């Protein structure tokens, strides 16, 4: 099979229904989607439209009620929870709206976290951490803890953490939602670096039209339906 022609992400007939007691709440309905390797795609839509659920399915954090989710040619439904965790560790980097850094760890330690799951030696891990922090321009903030960093710096640490394992897929859920315009701009500049310079596949959910403009393709979701 020609892997180069394979989409990085392929969703076919994907639906997701949550149960609230005896009530079924449909969140996604028959979503078909294909994301090419190395592309930068944004998903927009009102609250409750299913954006975050879609991200969770693509990143293997959740399972669809129906349909197929394939990432890099792998059907995620065939992986059990432990295999899915291992797969995420090696293939997906996460960026969250509220950064989700561990407050008691330094910037370097936060970035090092995903590498604890790898077979790298301590020295190799340090090299990777230094490289990732250099990419986001925070080599001088290595030993600072999250409370000592600005929001923009924290998100850049989170980006360094997302790319330190060199994943093919980077998932960003409202990455600029908690930042001022300047910091948001710096984060989006970094996304372009990841996209153009490091050829990562970036999938971003955002409410911010300025952020979405940076993507190659913008998808709109409304009431669980991809427009």
């Amino acid at each position, binding site marked *: 099979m020609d892997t180069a022609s394979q989409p990085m992400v392929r969703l076919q007939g994907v639906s997701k229904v949550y149960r609230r007691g005896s009530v079924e709440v449909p969140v996604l309905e028959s979503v078909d989607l294909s994301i090419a390797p190395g592309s930068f795609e944004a998903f927009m839509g009102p609250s409750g439209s299913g954006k975050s659920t879609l991200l969770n399915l693509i990143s293997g954090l959740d399972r669809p009620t129906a349909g197929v989710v394939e990432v890099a040619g792998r059907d995620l439904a065939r992986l059990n929870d432990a295999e899915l965790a291992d797969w995420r560790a*090696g293939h997906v980097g996460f960026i969250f709206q509220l950064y989700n850094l561990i407050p008691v*760890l330094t910037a370097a*330690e936060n970035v090092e976290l995903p590498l604890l799951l790898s077979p790298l030696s301590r020295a190799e891990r340090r090299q990777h951490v230094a490289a990732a922090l250099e990419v986001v321009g925070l080599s001088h903030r290595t030993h600072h803890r999250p409370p000592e960093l600005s929001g923009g710096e924290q998100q850049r640490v989170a980006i360094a953490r997302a790319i330190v394992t060199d994943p093919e897929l980077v998932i960003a859920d409202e990455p600029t939602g908690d930042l001022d315009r300047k910091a948001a701009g710096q984060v989006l500049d970094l996304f372009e670096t990841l996209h153009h310079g490091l050829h990562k596949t970036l999938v971003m959910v955002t409410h911010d039209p300025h952020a979405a403009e940076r993507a190659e393709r913008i998808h709109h979701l409304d009431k669980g339906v991809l427009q």
Partner: protein
Amino acid sequence: MNYARLAWRDLGRNPLRLSLTVLAGAVGVMAFIFLRTVVDMFYSGAAAAQVDRLIIRNKVAITQPLPLSYFPRIAALPGVTAITHQSWFGGTMGESQRDFFPNLAIDPSSFMKVYPEYTLPPGQLTAFQADPCGALIGRKLSQRFGWKEGARVTLKSQIYPGEWTFNIRGIYDGTRPEVDTSALVFGYRCLNERLPENWKDQVGLFTVRVDDPARSPQVAAAIDGMFANSPYATLTESERAFQLGFVAMSSAILTAVKLVSNVILAIILLVIGNTIAMGVRERTRDIATLRAMGFRPRHVLLFVIVEAAAIGVAAGVLGALVAPPLLEGFARAVESQFGPMPENAVRVQTLVLAALAAVGVSLLGAVGPAIRALRLPVAEGLRRVA
């Protein structure tokens, strides 16, 4: 960085809460040690009992006397290597019970043969045996009241009327730490000579040593058989059984104390479990983030267990270290009412048990929060805002 360091750093999220939890756990451990030590002290007599000694008392009740005339008859029985007698005097220095200490009339010529764990210089023993109203005091009693050799002590007995003055002829020590040295013993002759005719030549109990502890039941049966049809029938039992008989009188109190000590463990469990639950709840999003990155449930479990174990170890060690000096201080404060605390009353086993119990209940307390943390779906955890 490694998992252990991550778990350790995680502990420092809320230093004040952590310190207060450890402190609360340590106080619980101290209370546990205190209560267990009280229970141990009840059993200390039984623990110090010798396997080759039998106690012979009046079958009707321990307060009833036995005739001194039994002495040579028991001594002549096969298997008996030594015999002595003693009588509870119940003396106090005044009306108050605050200065209470045990005091007994003994047979100076035979006592040390049956109780070799009491030692004193030969000269003092000779002086004691030569003085009809001579007395020996234990080292602790000597230190408690500052009494020295040659001092005269006057007691009022609750059993025998009048004032009784004794000459301290020696100070005895114990060959083992658990030997009680808080008593005063004096020559039986001093007591017997002043008693009215109908009270004379009666003793509280006899103690015998046997040549073969394995044959103690036969010797006991022979003694009791010999006096079975007399007005003063005897009940002979091992020294341990005799001591446990005293413990049995306080069994309701001991059961309550043991129960309370277990309740304290339950309180430690709740306190530490609550802290860990709060910590886990606050870290829900961090745990979900770690899980999203690929950390497995076992990693999360490790973090929770490390936290629980660290709190348990800290509380256990702190409590076990502070409890003995605190108990000694407490014992000194109440010494006048309850008498001195025996040497090494706080047993190492009790300290180890308390520390291990603290770790055990801490781990147990972590089970609920850990299960909740593991069951929470990652996507849901990520939505939580601390």
